[in-house]
């Protein structure tokens, strides 16, 4: 296990507290947990790509970053008035 895989494991473990935040409070307060989890997932993908030496994970990170941005923005717009 190299340093990159340890880093990825730490980042993935840090998603658990984000889940706790996303499980408490009002819908808009929960969304912040989801936003942080998205950031951590992106960096975990980058670390996994380095750790396993597979560039396809870095491609997944790029796609995930773009999709996560659009998805979160959609949630925000929806939570603004309708929910």
């Amino acid at each position: 296990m190299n340093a990159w895989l340890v880093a990825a494991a730490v980042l993935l473990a840090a998603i658990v507290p984000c889940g706790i935040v996303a499980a408490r409070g009002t819908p808009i307060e929960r969304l912040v947990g989801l936003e942080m989890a998205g950031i951590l997932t992106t960096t975990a993908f980058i670390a996994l790509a380095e750790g396993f030496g597979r560039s396809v994970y870095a491609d997944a990170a790029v796609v995930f970053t773009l999709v996560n941005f659009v998805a979160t923005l959609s949630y925000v717009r929806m939570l603004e008035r309708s929910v």
Partner: protein
Amino acid sequence: MTPGHWVEWILLSLGVAIQVVSVAGLLAMPNLFDRLHYLAPASGLGTLLIAGAVAAREALDHQGIEALLIAGFLLVFAPVLTHATARAARIREHGDWRVQDEERVKGP
């Protein structure tokens, strides 16, 4: 270990540490607007340092460029999400995101 390895290791450690501390802050803060502050170091500095570590290891090959692209994207667009979230919270709370009359600071 070569100097390049040290640079890579230091950047990676700092990046991960910043993200973990940001998550701890997110968990510790009592309300939404305090929590939103902790998205900035994680998305900006943390991701940039980890992308820097990738670039230090790989130079500007496929993975290095992609990591820097992601860091640049998050650096620019994560604040947009933070702003949009705060704006949505204001609208849910007050019906409008602008300063309310009762919030205005009264002059002397």
